[in-house]
C-alpha cells in the first residue's frame, strides 16, 4: 500500500493528549488539509509525520515502509515551516540547494536544479540575492522551492501562508494548488483557515481536541457536515434545534417542515442550515414565523438576522433577491429541506 498511512497514532505530552488515536490514509498524489482551531493537534500530527516529534503510540507508514521511528533526516520529505525558517546566512540559491549539498550532489547539478526551481516559483535570476531582502511572498516561494529541491515523496506545509496579507494569501493558495497538481506530489497542509482548506484540498480533515471529526472532500464537508462542530467550523451555518412529533414529522421552531426527517429512533437533533439556504418570505402559508432583528448589507450579499422561536437565524441573499423587509417586521422563513442536514444533538 503506497501513500501515507497513519495507524492509531497517539501523542501525549505528560498528561495532556495532543493527538488521540488518529488513523488517516493519504493516497499518493493527493492534497490533504488538516484543519482545526488552534490546539486541536493538527501541528503535532504533522510534526510526527515529519519525525520532529515521536508518537506515544501507533504507526506511520510512507510508501509501504514503517517510518514511525526513522529520524527526520532519513525520511524522504520536504517541509515548509510557519516561520519559513530560511537560513539567514545563505543566499536564495544556497538555501534552495541546501538539501542537495547535504546529500553531496555535484555542484553543476545543484546549480541547474536551483535554476529550474527558481523558474518554477517565478523568481528566475534570484539565486544570488540575500534571503533577508525578499518580500513576504518571495520568501514564501523560496521556502517552497527549498522543500521541493530533492523531489520528496511527501510535501508538508505548516500554516504556510499565515504570514501573508489576505490578497497575497489567496493568490498563493491557487498557485500552491496548481503547483501540487503539476508535480503530482502527496501534500499535507496544516491550516486554521477554512477558505484555504476549501481552495486547495482534495480531502479536508477537520480536527478538534486531538481527534478527527470528519475527513472528506471540501464540498461534502460543507454540504454534509458530520457533526455540529464541523458544521459550525466550516463556513457560516444556522444550528437550529429540531424535534420529531408523534407522527415522525420534523418540527423546527414550532413549525412542521416537510421533507426533513430525523434518523429513526431519535426524537431530537440539531438542524444545520446554511444561511444561503434560508429564504425570507411573507409570514403564514407554512413558513416559520420570525421577526427581523438586524440587516447587514455587505454590498455583495445581504445578511438578514431574524429571531424565531428563541433562536437566531441568519439568511443570506444576493443583492438582486434583496428581501423587502425592515427591522422589527414580522416575516416568514423557509428552509431548503434538500440542503438542510440533521445532526445528532
Amino acid at each position, binding site marked *: 500500500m503506497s501513500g501515507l498511512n497513519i495507524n492509531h497514532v497517539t501523542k501525549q505530552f505528560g498528561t495532556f493528549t495532543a493527538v488521540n488515536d488518529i488513523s488517516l490514509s493519504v493516497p499518493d498524489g493527493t492534497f490533504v488539509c488538516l484543519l482545526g482551531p488552534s490546539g486541536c493537534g493538527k501541528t503535532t500530527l504533522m510534526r510526527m509525520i*515529519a*519525525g*520532529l516529534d515521536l508518537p506515544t503510540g501507533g504507526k506511520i507508514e510512507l510508501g509501504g515502509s514503517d517510518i514511525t521511528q526513522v*529520524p*527526520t*533526516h532519513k*525520511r524522504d*520529505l*520536504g*517541509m515548509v*515551516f*510557519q*516561520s519559513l*525558517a530560511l*537560513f*539567514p*546566512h*545563505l543566499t536564495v540559491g544556497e538555501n534552495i540547494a*541546501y*538539501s542537495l549539498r*547535504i*546529500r553531496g550532489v555535484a555542484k553543476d547539478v545543484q546549480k541547474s536544479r536551483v535554476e529550474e526551481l527558481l523558474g518554477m516559483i517565478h523568481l528566475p535570476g534570484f539565486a544570488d540575492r540575500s534571503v533577508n531582502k525578499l518580500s513576504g511572498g518571495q520568501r514564501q516561494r523560496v521556502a517552497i522551492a*527549498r*522543500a521541493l*529541491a*530533492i523531489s520528496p515523496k511527501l510535501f*508538508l506545509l505548516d500554516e504556510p501562508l499565515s504570514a501573508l496579507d489576505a490578497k497575497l494569501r489567496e493568490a498563493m493558495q491557487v498557485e500552491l494548488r496548481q503547483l501540487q497538481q503539476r508535480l503530482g506530489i502527496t501534500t499535507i497542509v496544516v491550516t486554521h483557515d477554512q477558505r484555504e482548506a476549501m481552495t486547495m484540498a482534495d480531502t479536508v480533515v477537520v480536527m478538534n481536541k486531538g481527534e478527527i471529526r470528519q475527513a472528506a472532500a471540501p464540498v461534502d464537508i460543507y454540504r454534509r457536515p458530520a457533526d455540529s462542530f464541523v458544521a459550525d467550523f466550516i463556513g457560516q451555518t444556522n444550528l437550529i434545534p429540531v424535534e420529531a412529533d408523534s407522527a415522525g414529522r420534523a418540527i423546527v421552531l414550532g413549525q412542521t417542515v416537510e421533507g426533513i426527517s430525523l434518523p429513526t429512533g431519535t426524537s431530537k437533533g440539531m438542524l444545520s442550515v446554511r444561511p444561503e439556504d434560508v429564504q425570507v418570505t411573507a409570514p403564514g402559508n407554512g413558513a416559520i414565523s420570525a421577526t427581523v432583528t438586524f440587516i447587514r448589507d455587505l454590498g455583495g450579499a445581504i445578511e438578514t438576522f431574524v429571531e424565531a422561536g428563541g433562536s437566531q437565524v441568519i439568511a443570506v441573499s444576493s443583492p438582486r433577491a434583496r428581501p423587502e423587509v425592515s427591522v422589527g417586521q414580522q416575516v416568514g422563513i423557509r428552509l431548503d429541506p434538500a440542503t438542510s442536514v440533521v445532526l445528532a444533538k
Partner: protein
Amino acid sequence: MRREPPQRLADYGPLFFPAGMLIVFFVVPFATMIAVSFFQRQQGGFYTPAFVFDNYARFLTAFFGGVLGFSLFLAIAVAIACVAIGIPFTYLLSRSKRSVQIVWLVALLSVLSLSEVMIGFAWSTLFSRTAGITNLFVWMGLMTQAQALTPSFGAVMTAMTYQAFPYTVLVLYPALVRLDPTLTEAARTLGASPVKAFFTVVVPALRNTILATLIMVFIFALGSYLLPQLLGRPQHWTLSVLITDQAIYQSNMPFAAAMAVFLVLVSLALVGLSLYAGRQKEAK
C-alpha cells in the same frame, strides 16, 4: 520606532556619565602611560620626562618577541578553546528546560565571583601530586602512580579556559536563545543529521556572535598575569607577567609602560584584522 538624531547639547546628556568615566579611568591613565613610555629611566627607580625610544627599542629582542608571541598564542588558544566548548554547551543549555538553565547559569555566575588568585590556587591543588586529581585516577585504576600536572602549559590553559568560560557562555547565551529553533528542524527535514545541522546552520548563522566572543575572550586572556605564574613554568609567562615584574619588582615604569602600550596596539591590530576579515566574508 522613529529615531531622530540629537538636536541640542542636552540630547547628548545620557552620554556624559559614561564618557566621563571613560575619560577619567581609561583615556587619562592610558595617555599618562603612553607619555611615561617615552620617559628616561633613572637608576634607583624613578624616571624623568624625556622623549626617548630606548624603552621600545629594548624589547625588539628575540626574548621579548618570543614572550609577546607566546602571550598572543596563549590568548588565541584560550579563546578558541572557550568558544569550541562554549557553543555546543550553550546550544544544549538554550534547548533545555527553564529550571535546568537557571541552575547552570547561577553556577556559571558564581564562578565569576571567584578571584583569579582563588582559581589559581584551586587548580594548583587539583593538579598537585599530593592532593590532586591524579590520586583519583590511581584509585580508579587508570594510573599507577600519582603525579604533578603543574607547572605545565596544560595547567595554564585549563585554568584560563575555566576562568573565561562563564563570560563565553553569557555572551553566547542570548544569541542562541534568540536563534529560531525551526532553523535546525528545517535543516533536519532537508536531510541534515542533528550534528550536521548544528555545523551547517547554527554555527554559520551565529558567525558574528562567535567572532565577537572570540575577540572578547582573547582580550580577557591577554590580561591574565597570575595564572601563568601560579600554574606555568617561566617559559609560559606572558607579557602581562613581565609588565607586572618590570613595573612592581624592577621599578622600571617607562619600560613597563612601553610594553603595555605595545601590547594594546598589537591586540587592537589583531581585533581590527579579524573584524575586517569577518566583514569581507559577509560582503562576499
